């Protein structure tokens, strides 16, 4: 099936050459837009238009379309936060115990010298 995917990927960049004057026809149509054309902006279009202009909607769509990627990213972020919290805890406890450990041998040395 792999080679089919390869051809389909290439096919994305393929276009059918329309009749020579399609650009002209479209430009001509735009030049003569009347009130009746505004009917084209129906409810469905307005709905699509609002959605395509909403950052929140687009983000939710992205998450819905790639739930696996989103979950992986969320799990990764969670573990990074846990790891950072763990490291902070270790360092802070080391600082406390480290201070005590540093003091006791020096006090021993002091008694030996005496």
């Amino acid at each position, binding site marked *: 099936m792999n080679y089919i995917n390869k051809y389909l990927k290439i*096919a994305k960049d393929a276009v059918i050459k*329309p*009749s020579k004057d399609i650009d002209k026809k479209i430009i001509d149509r*735009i030049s003569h837009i009347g009130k009746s054309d505004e009917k084209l902006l129906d409810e469905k279009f307005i709905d699509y238009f609002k959605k*395509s202009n909403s950052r929140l909607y687009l983000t939710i769509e992205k998450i819905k379309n790639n739930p696996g990627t989103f979950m992986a990213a969320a799990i990764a972020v969670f573990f990074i936060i846990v790891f950072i919290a763990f490291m902070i805890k270790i360092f802070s406890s080391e600082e406390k115990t480290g201070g005590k450990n540093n003091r006791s041998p020096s006090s021993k040395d002091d008694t030996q010298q005496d």
Partner: protein
Amino acid sequence: MDKYNKGSKYREIDEKVLVAKSKKGDKAAFEELVKQFSKYVYTTAFFILRDTYEAEDASQEVFVKVYLSIKGFRGLSSFKTWIRKLTVNTCIDKLRLRSKIKDKKVSLEKITEEHEIVFTKFSQSLEIGFFNKETVKEVLKIIVNLDESYRIPIILRDLQDYSYREISELTGKPIGTVKTNIHRARKMIKEKLKMYR
């Protein structure tokens, strides 16, 4: 960055400038956008509708919609993505209307030798030779000739990058059915391509 990526980057900048100018009411800039995207819109419309006149009509409709609403376009997605989804929505609506009115007894066009297929990015790549081009043309011919229940999902998935969920919402079919139909369509393409070879 290679030549190809540079080209698409420049096109993207060009596109943003043209959209910005069009939003300010610059008609010449909008006409340039029409020239840049008309082939793309027409092709998508033809693949879905399989009728030259309807595809032309749909293309005009899409650009009228864009012209009337471009001032409110915020540019959160690229212009190409925006116009692509608008084209697909417009064509799917037309397809639904047609199936209601004409009772599916329409003589649908196939891609023939008259339909010249060109590759937008293709010509820049020397790796892709004549054989590949011809095979891609053949693949497109097979897709256009597929039944609607297979054609629409595979076009949306493989040519338009829609997710299974989006296709399911658009066609009103369960995700499982969409996945099955796409898988079957790919299988059909593979089998028909073997015959062609």
